[in-house]
């Protein structure tokens, strides 16, 4: 069930307009290629260029104790303070507003040559669905360093977020962002990363909670021999909108990139959107690239869009491929498993966990994995009452 390009936008991803100034953007109407599938109605609070923390209280409580204790937090970076903006360029209105309205960026820096064994977990808690918060976060791995940085989001808020990720020469960085929000949260996040010579970035997006969650990661494999693995897993329940627009740009020579996103959906109005763009640049000889999106539809009433695009500007590459597949867990699957003695509940568990675990196992952080296991249990419990999807085409 692998499909090739379904849709090629007129405007290629590398040519998207960029600007730091919110005034340079039209208010999106929903016809634009990057907004077409988004729930703009619910995301509306993030389209307003207003004073951050608009009701006079903080929108997000940042618990960064573990980073502080280790000395990995650098003094907050103002708009002009390097490395803020070294590579980050807002590509849409919420991102430009977040850039403008966040005076002091949170700056995580891993010192050169240092390997940090313990994951560094920043806990971000939303303090109210009526609060509009904006943030710019910098995660910088200095040459030869190694670390895992986690952003774990909980609570309720309207949150626009920029994450600027710099992986300098020969550094190895894992970034995990977990959207464990309450369902009244709306969250638009732009992650932009650059990976330098010989460096490696593993980037994982985990979205289970939130009303509208749009996390758009983009990785530029800039350095020679740089490498990235971009993973994502989401679970959209009734009424939830989970979206990822993923961009991987092979810029340097001999870069390796692998993208795999898995989205599960259940319940009325559950929605997922995945747009995956890969660009293999004119100088990117020896590129090895693959991207895939897989969706698992567990009930009727859901909708998923999956749009992979691949653009190749040089002929001298190792390999490039893309795939998109949507499977339905329907009553025929249920019957097959039950006819082997497996209960309905266990059958659903088998299918859901079998599907999601491939990504969850890549996280490699026990506390986060066990939290995700809890979230999966909650989804299974929520889905227990729902009938499997009716047979496609029946």
């Amino acid at each position, binding site marked *: 069930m692998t499909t090739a390009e379904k849709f090629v936008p007129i405007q290629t991803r590398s040519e998207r307009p960029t600007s730091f100034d919110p005034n340079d953007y039209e208010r999106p109407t929903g016809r634009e290629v990057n907004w077409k599938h988004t729930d703009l109605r619910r995301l509306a609070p993030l389209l307003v260029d207003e004073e951050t923390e608009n009701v006079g209280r903080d929108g997000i409580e940042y618990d960064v104790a573990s980073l502080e204790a280790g000395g990995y937090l650098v003094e907050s970076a103002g708009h002009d303070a390097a490395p803020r903006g070294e590579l980050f360029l807002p590509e849409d209105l919420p991102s430009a507003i977040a850039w403008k309205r966040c005076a002091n960026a949170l700056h995580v820096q891993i010192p050169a040559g240092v390997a940090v064994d313990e994951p560094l977990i920043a806990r971000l808690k939303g303090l109210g669905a009526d609060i509009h918060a904006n943030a710019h976060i910098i995660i910088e791995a200095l040459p030869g360093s190694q670390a895992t940085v986690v952003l774990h989001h909980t609570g309720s808020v309207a949150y626009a977020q920029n994450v600027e990720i710099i992986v300098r020469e020969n550094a190895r960085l894992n970034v995990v962002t977990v959207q464990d929000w309450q369902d009244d949260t709306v969250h638009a996040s732009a992650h932009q990363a650059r990976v330098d010579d010989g460096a490696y970035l593993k980037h994982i997006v985990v979205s289970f909670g939130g009303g509208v969650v749009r996390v758009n990661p983009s990785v530029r494999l800039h350095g020679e021999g740089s490498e990235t693995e971009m993973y994502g897993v989401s679970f959209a329940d009734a009424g939830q909108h989970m979206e990822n627009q993923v961009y991987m740009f092979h810029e340097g020579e001999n870069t390796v990139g692998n993208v795999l996103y898995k989205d599960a959906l259940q319940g009325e109005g559950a929605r997922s959107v995945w747009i995956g763009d890969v660009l293999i640049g004119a100088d990117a000889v020896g590129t090895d690239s693959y991207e895939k999106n897989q969706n698992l539809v567990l009930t009727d009433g859901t909708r998923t869009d999956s749009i992979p695009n691949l653009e190749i500007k040089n002929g001298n590459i190792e390999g490039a491929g893309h795939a998109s597949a949507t499977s339905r867990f329907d009553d025929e699957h249920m019957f097959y498993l039950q006819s*082997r003695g497996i209960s309905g509940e266990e059958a659903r568990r088998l*299918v859901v966990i079998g599907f999601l675990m491939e990504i969850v196992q890549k996280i490699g952080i026990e506390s986060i994995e066990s939290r995700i296991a809890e979230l999966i249990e909650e989804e299974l419990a929520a889905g227990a009452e729902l009938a499997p999807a009716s047979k496609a085409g029946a």
Partner: protein
Amino acid sequence: MSVLEIKDLKVSIETDAGPKQILKGVDLTINSDQIHAIMGPNGSGKSTLAYAIAGHPRYNVDSGSITLDGEDVLEMEVDERAQAGLFLAMQYPVEIPGVTVSNFLRTAKTALTGEAPKIREWVGDVREAMDSLRMDSSFQERNVNEGFSGGEKKRHEILQMELLRPRFAVLDETDSGLDIDALRVVSEGVNRVKQANKMGVLLITHYTRILRYIQPDFVHVFVDGRIAEEGGRELADRLEEEGYDRYLNASV
């Protein structure tokens, strides 16, 4: 001894044009350790009978009964029927996304026996069963039926039968799509489980070839939703010679 008893079974399905009766009164009694072959034209309702025994929700039982040692099978959920010892090797096994064969087999075994099988023994059993069905062990890591060829799917059905050890197995055209060697290997599997378990078998087929390997005690001719004639092995040979015309004319 166990007995699976089907009495005056009438089954219909919902269609766009309203309910349609498929089974029009089926009577069949299968004792453990017996092999019953069912042959009949396309569309006569053989798979419908198989699915009705297994409890597929699409098939509505309008009247009649199915009992296993006196227990009412129709009252049981699909998984309870498997727990009670019924097994259906399907004509068209479905692909299950994201579930590996190995995980699936272990989960099914655990569900049937009520406890997780001892890991070392189980791994050995699975390997042995796969070897005897000439299935490469790499299938264990693949998703259930995903991308399996027609014949591979059939072998995988018999692999499950071998590992789950039912009391009664319904084999719905398991021989269709098997190559000549696979037919023999699969038949040996069926005979093995039958011997070890005193398993009763309901074998649905279009071809007499499989009956050379799996000796039927009874052959039933299935026409238009009911059994039109019963006999021994020789009935199959006669069908091969004459086809179903005799019955079809009679039923007009």
